[in-house]
């Protein structure tokens, strides 16, 4: 009784552990229950062109930082001959190219992949950017002071003040102060920053990139980030100097938040930076994995292995399901199979070959193998060498099928090489002995049983949903284990026994 209780505690423990781990992974890492959900990834190229001045060149490009709506997945750069480093001084991130000697036209490429990620947030602002000293010409200073005064009257805080200034700057018929301050200046953004600075409001110039699928030779849109401190909390808003409306951050990637310059170039001239981008839909899972690679969250999971080994595990982690099918078929149904787990191996071969090709190939191979094996019966050979002969024969048959189907233009036939040859040979040997001893009927019943179980296992193991679940939720392995344990303690009748004992049950 005690051992029994322990058993059920064990099973319940495994079930709880498995389900808990599975749900936890879904909630914590956002791994979807179903495969096929997609996320948007932006693949953006920055191209830097300049003329080198026959000497050492150093170019550093400001790159996007963490921000609301987007998460950086990966970055890389292409630039033959240049030394490359990605710098991060805690405030701004940069890609820096360096070379000892360069002449003529130079082109550098920087590529970044960002994931559209609603969970990502802006970095917390820890300090207000410092105000700067600037000498203004007298006329401009007087006009600016008037504009500031007007705006100050009709505003309550830094943000509303900015809006008031923008209204004046972008008015359809600007007043003379505005006209004066704008003359000779092409850039409203610099004017806005100067005015806000004059009003003792902290600002920062931000370069933003509008994301649009398939766009090329794009440039950053200059925006002004306005800061305000209220009750010890610093907040900021983005403004576009050419419009009164507030900035729509949808599809807007803040590329340059350094507040300085996008590109710092020494040893070159005539530089220009242009951007091109494409939008990609990626399965949610791989997008998440790429995202988390950077964050080391998946360190102790299979996802931390190299891709090659991961794909190996993709197959291995499905085996428990196949094994469970075998257990169910034997314990609950009572099907006879030739070799306990041979059906699982055949099912794995079917996954490689596709079902119909696999079935046809398997039946053909075993049938021809049995035919030839019946001749070997007469040769009075030792068992090991006889099976070895069968193995060689199977390999030759596989080669023959491969070549034949290729010549006939049936490339499907080449997949037959995926069959486990040793297993196939043992199957032929066993079936052959079975045929001699128990007759063809038993061969068909066991062979058919094996194939039926193999096909069932194939459907379960090749299903996209089960593959997705078993690979991404390791906890499900515990659930399968618990179920197999439970099946192991089932002492009731098998389905086929209900048929077998029917005459007995119907007696009297």
């Amino acid at each position, binding site marked *: 009784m005690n051992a029994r209780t322990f058993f059920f505690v064990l099973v319940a423990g495994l079930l709880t552990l498995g389900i808990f781990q599975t749900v936890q992974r879904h909630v914590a890492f956002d791994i979807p229950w179903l495969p096929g959900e997609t996320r948007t990834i932006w693949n953006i190229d920055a191209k830097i062109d300049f003329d080198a001045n026959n000497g050492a060149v150093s170019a550093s490009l400001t790159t996007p930082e963490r921000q609301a709506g987007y998460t950086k997945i990966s970055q890389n750069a292409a630039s033959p001959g240049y030394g490359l480093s990605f710098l991060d001084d805690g405030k701004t991130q940069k890609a820096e190219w360096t070379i000892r000697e360069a002449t003529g036209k130079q082109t550098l490429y920087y590529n970044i992949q960002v994931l559209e990620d609603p969970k990502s947030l802006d970095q917390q602002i820890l300090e207000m950017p410092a105000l700067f000293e600037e000498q203004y010409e007298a006329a401009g200073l007087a006009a600016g002071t008037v504009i500031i005064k007007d705006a100050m009257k009709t505003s309550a805080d830094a943000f509303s003040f900015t809006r008031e200034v923008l209204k004046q700057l972008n008015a359809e018929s600007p007043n003379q102060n505005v006209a004066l301050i704008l003359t000779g200046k092409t850039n409203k953004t610099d004017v806005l920053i100067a005015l806000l600075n004059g009003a003792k409001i902290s600002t920062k110039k931000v370069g933003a990139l509008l994301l649009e699928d398939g766009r090329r030779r794009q440039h950053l849109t200059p925006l002004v980030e306005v800061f305000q401190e209220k009750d010890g909390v610093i907040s900021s808003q983005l403004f576009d100097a050419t419009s009164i409306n507030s900035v729509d951050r949808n599809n807007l990637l803040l590329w340059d938040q350094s507040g300085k310059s996008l590109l710092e170039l020494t040893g070159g001239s005539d530089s220009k930076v242009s951007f091109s981008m494409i939008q990609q839909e990626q399965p949610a899972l791989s997008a998440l994995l790429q995202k988390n690679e950077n964050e080391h969250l998946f360190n102790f999971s299979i996802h931390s292995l190299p891709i090659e080994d991961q794909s190996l595990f993709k197959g291995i982690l499905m085996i428990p399901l196949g094994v469970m099918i075998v257990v169910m078929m034997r*314990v609950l149904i*009572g099907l006879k199979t030739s070799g306990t787990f041979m059906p699982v191996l055949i099912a794995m071969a079917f996954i490689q070959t596709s079902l119909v090709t696999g079935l046809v190939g398997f039946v053909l191979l075993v049938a021809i193998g049995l035919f030839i094996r019946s001749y070997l019966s007469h040769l*009075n*050979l*030792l*068992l*090991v060498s006889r099976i070895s002969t069968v193995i060689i024969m199977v390999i030759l048959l596989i080669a023959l099928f491969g070549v034949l189907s290729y010549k006939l233009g049936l490339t499907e036939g080449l997949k037959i090489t995926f069959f486990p040859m040793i297993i196939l040979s043992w199957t032929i040997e066993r079936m052959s*002995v079975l045929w001699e*001893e*128990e*007759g063809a009927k038993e061969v068909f019943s066991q062979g058919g049983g094996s194939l039926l179980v193999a096909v069932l296992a194939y459907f379960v193991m090749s299903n996209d949903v089960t593959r997705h679940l078993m690979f991404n939720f390791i906890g499900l392995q515990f659930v399968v284990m618990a179920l197999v344990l439970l099946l*192991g*303690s*089932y*002492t*009731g*009748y*098998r*389905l086929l*026994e*209900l*048929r*077998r*004992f*029917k*005459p*007995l*049950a*119907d*007696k009297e």
Partner: protein
Amino acid sequence: MFFSSPFKLRDKGIMGMNQRNSGYIGRYNPRKLYPLVDNKLKTKIIAREANVTTPALLGVITIQAEVEGVEQYIKETPGFVIKPAKGSGGKGILVITKVENGRYYKPNGSEESLSEIKRHVTDILAGLFSLGGSADVAVVEGLIQFDNAFDGFSFEGVPDVRVIVFKGFPVMAMMRLSTAASDGKANLHQGAVGVGVDITTGAAINAVQFDKPVKYHPDTNKELALLQVPKWERLIYLASSCYEMSGMGYLGTDMVLDRDLGPMLLELNARPGLAIQIANGQGILPRLKLIESLGDDHGMTVEQRIDFCKKHFSQNSPKLKI
């Protein structure tokens, strides 16, 4: 309906494969004793020590080099059987019923050449018939001259009696008669006829072939109800004493009747099948439960155990409840 209801089977006390495996074989048959039962040579040795009669041992071939010498064991005999020591389910048993001028004949009259016999021995040694394919030895035994009482009841083969011995109690018995369909073998799933036999008297109760009831032997047309196992007392005694000898709690004993030597033990089976229930027309569970209810300290001798079973498991005994 195609399937019977599981509750109906439960009511009849019929044991299923899963229950047999975990409830009886797993519980009462210690794993370490399996080699005694799975290896027919070892069974023979312990049987000899326990004074349980077994067929004569003519020779044992253990290595390939000895295969050529198989002739010395067999050429002077009236007939013989070559079997793998670790074979299962009757696999790899070669029966020669007639030896004439160095020519060998199988029960169905076809000739088996000496080289074919040698190939068979080679196969046995390589482990083709043994459990798990491990290397094996070939055992050559004298042919059993089966009792005239079975004339007409069996076709080309030795009929044997399977007695299920549970903790030393003979709980159920059946006679297995070979047929043309079973190729002289006494395995029910190969087409042998199973005849349920009354524990008290050794008389036939009910007969089946391929799990379906039959009244007459399919090849000889002999009425199976007339079957009566001779020397039943001795047979059931030998079967029951196999418990002490092997230590197995849930044991299938296969007994044969020799014309001259009487009942003898052919082999033991640690995983006896379920067909005996169909042959007897009743479930085995009520009997097993009754024995289990006696506990381990009943202190009964072999004779007392047999008397207990005769009293409770006879056709005339009151019906047992689960």
